[in-house]
């Protein structure tokens, strides 16, 4: 079976791993790698002091970059379950993973609320 991603990368060790987590990890690594280039192209494309053709060229190059280098493709995923929905950003946990841990008293400072 051919390798699924265009570039080889390290499997994350800090979290639960499944296919979707790997996909997201790949995008994160790619974005970090191409961040400087993307921002430089954006800077040229939006610089009104430069000629229109230069700006257009930059915009075209930016559009031609693979989609996996874009930050909009990155999605927060649960560290414990790999779930991509209902992730609470403060804990990087999905609602069920968070609830289990909060009820067990594992998360510092979090208790069951009552008022």
């Amino acid at each position: 079976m051919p390798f699924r991603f265009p570039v080889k990368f390290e499997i994350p060790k800090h979290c639960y791993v499944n296919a979707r987590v790997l996909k997201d990890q790949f995008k994160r690594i790619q974005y970090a790698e191409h961040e400087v280039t993307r921002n430089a192209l954006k800077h040229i494309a939006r610089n009104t002091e430069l000629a229109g053709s230069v700006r257009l060229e930059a915009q075209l190059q930016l559009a031609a970059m693979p989609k996996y280098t874009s930050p909009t493709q990155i999605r927060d995923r649960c560290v414990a379950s790999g779930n991509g929905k209902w992730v609470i950003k403060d804990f990087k946990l999905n609602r069920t993973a968070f609830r289990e841990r909060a009820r067990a008293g594992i998360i510092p400072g979090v208790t069951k609320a009552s008022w």
Partner: protein
Amino acid sequence: MIRTGSKRLLGLNLRLFSTGPKLFAAQKLTPAELLQQKTQEKLQQQEFEKSLLQGELEYKPKYLSENAVKGSGTKPIPINVELLKYKPIRLPKTHGHKVVSMKFRGYDETDINIAIEFASRAAFYLGIPVSGIMKQKTEKRLYTVIKSPFAQAKSKENFYRTTFNYKLDAFDANPEVVDLWLSYVNKHALETVHYTAKIITRESANFVEQLDSVSVEDVKIPEGFKDSNDPIMSKVDELLKSDAFKKHMDQ
């Protein structure tokens, strides 16, 4: 009718019918006696503080607690460990100029208390007058999640995360001493507590005159986007010199 002999009854009655200060319950002292008592207490306190600062303390471990704690082994608890039961001693302010305001933040209140007491004890031995331990507003952030792992979205469960905030102000210390204090506190910082220190510095009285004497040549405004350390701008330069952009630039 209330008999003079039954003080207890009088106090009780007063407590029942009034919410004001318990004047009669307190020991009766003339103003002169009270003043004398207060001055004596103050003198004792001064003597005690002076003795703390004079030279090295003799090591004479004493049990402060009545019942000797059965700890590990036969060794007695050192006096400095037992002294942790007491509030940290504070030095009086000389001018009351605030120098540092430290903030302590964390989820565990006991840990913050340990951190803040450590800081104030260190301040005492460095001769820095500090304020008392001031509790700031406690933050509670609410998280409402669906109880069930699937469907039944109507039944929810509430959790909150409490973040405790404490503050400690330091006064009238030299910047060198303040640096020493802060670095010492930082060296022994607890992992569970988030420390922030706002250091206040003062300008001399003729600061305005100094500002007036500054000419335009003395002030160097940072040159925007011309910093060679900026990776994006160096990349921009590289891109504009590349073949794809060169033909457009020549036009």
